[in-house]
């Protein structure tokens, strides 16, 4: 018979390396038509890093996402970056990009100030314009200013910056210290059905609410959460590298069982409204934490459905059935 159950799990997860320095550097070049090029040493691994980093550069310069071309991942051309790891790209590389773009923007402000008969500190960059704060009717387009700065004044608008999350070494005895700059938080709730005669677990639905600070690109954050959950479902129920005499027995996708489209539940994904003052425009990160609470939520749902506590992953149908039978025997 199929039995329904629900279970929740929450988690916390840090951004960046544990204590160790993990800097990023970036260079932003504004073209004379007001578009820009961002140079970053990070690598796009599918998460949408280059899109998000482009958006951060665009935001700082007051231009649109499409105005920024991102050049990445060439040690001959791009600045150093610790890389696509530890959910650090939006936060660490993003902060470096803001510094670089601000430096370029400052050059634009200094060029625009006399053009607009104000001081540089009175200016802001918005909607592809350099405009006077509190009196936006008075503006020059970024293209005009960038052209003027580079071609007339002879000062190209280019900036470089770097960022490393501030941490404090952990005490070797007590572990006390500040290993990370910031953390994100999340909850997932799973709705499952357990067949108590075969042990088969079907995950019907997962609700996920994740804090990532400001979502720079909500569509990409949703994608991270959905993908992380699929990894969590595999971790919970099916995936395991098995060994015999020290050799893997299932090193292929026939017998290493990861979720297919038919194995994924309905997903309902939301972001928790939050703002981290240390992050770029309040952002933290979203990559890894999405895969963290899924298995725990599913295990708690299995408990709710059939009253068994799975203490070792994955909860294969065989393991679940044998726990059910043990419980009946007891």
């Amino acid at each position, binding site marked *: 018979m199929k039995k329904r159950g629900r279970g929740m799990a929450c988690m916390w997860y840090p951004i960046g390396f544990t204590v160790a320095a993990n800097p990023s550097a970036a260079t932003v070049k504004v073209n004379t038509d007001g578009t820009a090029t961002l140079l970053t040493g990070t690598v796009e*691994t*599918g*998460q*949408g890093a280059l899109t998000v980093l482009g958006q951060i550069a665009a935001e700082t310069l007051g231009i649109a996402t499409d105005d920024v071309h991102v050049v990445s991942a060439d040690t001959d051309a791009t600045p150093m970056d610790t890389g696509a790891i530890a959910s650090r790209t939006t936060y660490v590389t993003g902060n470096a990009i803001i510094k670089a773009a601000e430096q370029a923007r400052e050059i634009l402000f200094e060029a625009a100030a006399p053009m607009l008969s104000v001081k540089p500190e009175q200016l802001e960059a918005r909607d592809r314009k350099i405009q006077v704060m509190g009196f936006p009717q008075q503006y020059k387009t970024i293209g005009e200013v960038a052209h003027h700065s580079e071609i007339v004044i002879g000062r190209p608008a280019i900036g470089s910056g770097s960022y490393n999350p501030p941490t404090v070494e952990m005490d070797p005895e007590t572990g006390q210290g500040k290993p990370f700059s910031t953390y994100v938080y999340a909850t997932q709730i799973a709705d499952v059905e357990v067949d108590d005669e075969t042990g088969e677990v079907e995950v019907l639905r997962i609700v996920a609410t994740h804090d990532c600070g400001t979502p720079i690109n909500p*569509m*990409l954050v*949703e*994608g991270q959460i*959905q*993908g*992380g*959950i*699929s*990894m969590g479902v595999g971790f919970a129920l099916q995936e395991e590298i098995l060994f015999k005499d020290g050799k893997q027995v299932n090193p*292929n*996708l*026939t017998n290493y069982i*990861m979720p*297919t*489209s*038919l194995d*994924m539940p309905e*997903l309902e994904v939301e972001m928790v409204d939050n703002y981290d003052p240390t992050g770029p425009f309040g952002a933290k990160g979203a990559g890894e934490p999405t895969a963290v609470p899924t298995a725990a939520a599913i295990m708690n749902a299995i408990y709710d459905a059939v009253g068994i506590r799975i203490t070792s992953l994955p909860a294969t149908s065989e393991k679940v059935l044998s726990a059910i039978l043990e419980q009946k025997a007891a």
Partner: protein
Amino acid sequence: MIVKLKVNGEIRSADVPPETTLLKLLREHLSLTGAKLGCDVGDCGTCTVIVDGESVNSCLMLAGRASGREVTTIEGLASSEQLHPLQEKFEELGALQCGFCGPGMIISAKALLDKNPEPTVFEVKDALSGNLCRCTGYTKIIEAVLDAGRIMSTSEAKS
């Protein structure tokens, strides 16, 4: 052996060893690298192409068997003026992340929509179950296929 086939509407031929798979023929002899090699044994679906209207794992089909047939790869979906509705929707909804599964995924979806432009969610999942994706959880992919199907069925109704 010489294999002659029609790929994306063009007649192509190549002289290949008989054990060559259709995937190798496409990638290494015809420079069509859209279909990917992910497992080489038909588990992952990244090599999916359409042969005479049916989706197949090109890593499991010997090139000789494709001789005289019509093959559609991911490179054959768009025209110079427009994207295929699937390509359009996959882009718009951010359905792909690393993108490695994308060509196979879109080809499988095309094979489905060509026969059934208004599939149910289950039918979409079923049609894509031979295409593994590790990044997306399939959610946005399924949405994009459903959306593309709607575009395809309305444009068909109009014409």
